[in-house]
């Protein structure tokens, strides 16, 4: 294994994810950014042949995994930095300068200098250390070269983004790994030929040579001037060599590592914890009462983009049109709840897959998730139903999303869970024991998605999360055969030991009802 550790010495990273626009900080740092910094170190610090060989070797390796922490972002503000292209106007003799000429001339002085707007996007990770990990690489030959390169790196991103880098023997496990299937993010990575391209575009050797010849020409006598001029023309027929910005490196899909860092012995549902989070980027705000409308529109969008035959794990139906008995794709909203002033409005929605579906199959059927622009950002897709739902969503790729859009909000291990949308019962509880029946149905619903039976279930009219409406404000689901209303209820329940999510219970679990969230009881750590 080869790993490079990078520590942001100021505690933040200043690098833009969107090129010259500089409206979005980049986090985590892309592997190609590291490669470019290593290349710069190699040549500017004259690291030697071993370092150059290490670079050539590195660009031929598969893309690395990354281990990094979440980051928050500094608010993007516009600074005004003084320009340097001001010139003093030429004045005519015996003529009074005009107001404009005075203004232009004064702009040379520091206090009157014109300024241009600039933005400096900053990401602040909770842990300033990031690791780039190439698993399975045989590093013996290039250990030294990589070490030399690391010691000579100065910054990653803007020149103010000072870093320390080192060859690392024992990195933490990667939490973002390259994938050829559905990806959460796309990062730029080096590939074979990248080093040559960077050296060619930087063009340092030619620029220095041209500079040296030009300097000699300036101080030479007339005979030497002529000779030097000829030499310059011959060696540089296209004029002064330029230093050009390199082309962007290729994009590689990345996905969060499988277990999200949870211990393997923690019971988890049969839904994959790596839920796909789609952020609402435009469209009418919706609240929890619109759950069914939203998920229905989202399902239609997903199905419309699938090729025939649509797999059972997406449609929820077998080949002969019957309802599938197996776990299938679930779509659920991601509301802002549980915080002060929360009002339950949706920040986005999520798609949960059955755990046993292969990544390649997901990628094949949800290929639209991998559609991205030149910066690796997911392109938005439309979700609408012609009436109330008119959204655009895109794959959530920021490093520090709002709480509702964070996977761990809905999946982290907990003993205590509570509903955000009510649990729909398979059948209507009746008789004197109807409450017990309902409690039993909740317990069964947990088992149905692979969780143990809860120790205790309490049915409630309201949810303990701020912003969640009373259960009566949720439109009921209707039975297909007679359009009868299906009974639903909020609930709070707990298990003997922590379980991890996503926890989606009851007859509405594939359509956004029965969505549960970890709920910490008083006194629980």
């Amino acid at each position: 294994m080869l790993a490079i550790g990078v520590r942001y010495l100021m505690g933040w990273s200043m690098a833009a994810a969107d090129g010259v626009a500089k409206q979005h900080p980049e986090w985590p740092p892309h592997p190609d950014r590291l490669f470019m910094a290593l290349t710069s170190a190699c040549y500017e610090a004259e690291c030697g042949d071993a370092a150059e060989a290490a670079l050539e070797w590195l660009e031929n390796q598969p893309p690395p995994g990354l281990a990094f922490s979440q980051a928050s972002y500094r608010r993007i503000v516009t600074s005004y930095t003084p320009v340097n292209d001001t010139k003093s106007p030429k004045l005519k003799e015996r003529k009074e300068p005009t107001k404009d000429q005075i203004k232009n001339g004064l702009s040379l002085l520091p206090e009157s200098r014109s300024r241009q707007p600039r933005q400096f996007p900053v990401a602040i990770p909770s842990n300033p250390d990031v690791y780039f990990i190439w698993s399975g690489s045989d590093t013996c030959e290039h250990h030294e070269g990589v070490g030399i390169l690391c010691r000579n790196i100065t910054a990653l991103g803007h020149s103010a983004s000072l870093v320390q880098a080192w060859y690392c023997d024992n990195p933490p496990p990667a939490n973002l790994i390259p994938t050829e299937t559905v990806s959460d993010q796309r990062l730029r990575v080096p590939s074979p030929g990248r080093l040559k391209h960077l050296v060619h575009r930087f063009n340092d050797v030619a620029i220095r040579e041209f500079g040296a010849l030009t300097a000699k020409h300036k101080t030479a006598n007339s005979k030497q001037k002529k000779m030097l001029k000829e030499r310059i023309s011959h060696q540089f027929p296209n004029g002064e060599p330029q230093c050009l910005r390199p082309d962007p490196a290729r994009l590689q899909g990345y996905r969060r590592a499988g277990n999200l860092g949870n211990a393997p012995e923690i019971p988890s549902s049969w839904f994959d914890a790596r839920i796909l989070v789609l952020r609402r980027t435009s469209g009418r705000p919706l609240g929890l009462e619109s759950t069914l409308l939203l998920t229905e529109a989202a399902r239609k969008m997903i199905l419309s983009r699938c090729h025939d035959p649509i797999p059972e794990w997406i449609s929820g139906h077998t080949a002969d049109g019957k309802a599938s008995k197996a776990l299938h794709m679930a779509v659920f909203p991601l509301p802002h709840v549980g915080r002060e002033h929360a009002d339950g409005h949706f920040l986005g929605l999520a798609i949960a897959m059955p755990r046993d579906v292969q990544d390649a199959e997901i990628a094949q059927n949800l290929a639209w998730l991998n559609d991205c622009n030149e910066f690796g950002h997911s392109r938005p897709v439309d979700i609408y139903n012609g009436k109330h739902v008119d959204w655009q969503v895109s794959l959530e790729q920021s490093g520090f999303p709002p709480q509702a859009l964070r996977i761990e909000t809905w999946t982290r291990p907990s003993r205590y869970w509570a509903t955000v949308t009510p649990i729909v019962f398979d059948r209507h509880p009746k008789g004197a024991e109807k409450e017990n029946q309902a409690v039993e149905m909740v317990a069964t619903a947990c088992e149905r998605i692979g969780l143990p039976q809860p120790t205790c279930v309490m049915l409630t009219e309201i949810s303990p999360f701020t912003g969640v409406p009373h259960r009566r404000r949720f439109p009921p689901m209707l039975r297909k055969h007679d359009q009868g209303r299906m009974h639903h209820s909020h609930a709070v329940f707990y298990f003997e030991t922590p379980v991890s999510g996503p926890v989606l219970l009851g007859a509405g679990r594939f359509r956004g009802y029965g969505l549960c969230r970890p709920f910490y009881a008083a006194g629980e750590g």
Partner: protein
Amino acid sequence: MVSELNFDALSKAVTGSAAAFRCTTEYQPMGGQGDKVFPPTYEGGKYATEERILPGYEEPVPCVLLNSVQSEANHMELALLDAWEEGKIKLPVITVDFSGNDLEKELRVTSLEAPHRIADALLRDSQLEGVMFRETEQGRRLDFVDNKNATALLELCPTALLFGMWDSTGPKGGLGAKFARTIVSEIIGINCLMGEKTSSRLDPAQIMREAGPLYLAKKGGWTLDPMEAQQVKGKPETLGKDGKPSEANHGNIPPLISDGGFTIEKAMQTTVLSLPALRRLKFPMNDGPADIAANNVARTLLAALGLLAATLTRDKGMDLRSRCQLFPTAGFVWELLDNPGEEPKKYSLNSEQAITLFGQVLKKAKEKNLPWMVEELVLKPSPQLTVLVKKSQELAVSTAGAAEGE
């Protein structure tokens, strides 16, 4: 254990493999904990706020930028300028001196104050003994500087090597020499809470808005008589847009309450001096290749200058802007960041020690024949610029007279 940073330790750090010197300093407002501070506002009146996940806090902590990287660099340059003017350090300084031109107000701008340092347009458009600066012997040498040939900058403007420079308007235009900064500093307020500010004015003369309009007077100043006013297209010219008494600074301003200022738990300044960045610089002399020993001394000299700049600003107390003065709550300790995972060595350094250390390294540099301009290089502004500045000052005086009703 904290040791005093001496020449040997500094030299060893610069010539070794350590990554950086870093100093983290905590501050409180001069008015004491709980007093409000006013961070810089950006376009639209916004503050640069952020949340940080910090040890000891369960939830993300709201923070606000109190002094940016660029502003910190400016403060460090001004601290060096003060020390130089007080005769405490010998530093290459280039000054554009407007004196001797009979100006209303004398003006001097040094390379430590010019926005783009030695590459600034003001220096470019100034003269040394009648020759445009970039055409002089000193100026021409700047045409050929780069990382591997930084001697001219060491001699004439070493702060450009510390704080960065881009010679964007020299002979090579946008492809001119670029030097990345080697020292970065920033101050943030931690666990901040936005407050409110008030503003108002009570006019002692209680002049009402309806007392106007005021006009620009033919003889200077302002007048209420349209017949005595300057005429524009046959109409009397109002003072300002519509001749309100407030254009002449009269009248009340009603009380306003708006968001402004923050209380903070503490402020934290982080300063990092990058040693790999210094190691990239080379200092050839006498048209020969760079001497390794001379390179090391030159880099050590720059390191000493950077540490000096950072220490001087800390020792003076951070007077960042109106209602934003901070006082350090502890001494300054520099960590030498070497092997990750190892406890960094720690060094203390106050202003006196930093000045002494700088002097010691400068002496070593002289022994290595490294150039260091000790005499101030005084440039004169171009005649055209002088005319324009003079005219502008004259106009400013007459406009100020108008505002005061002379």
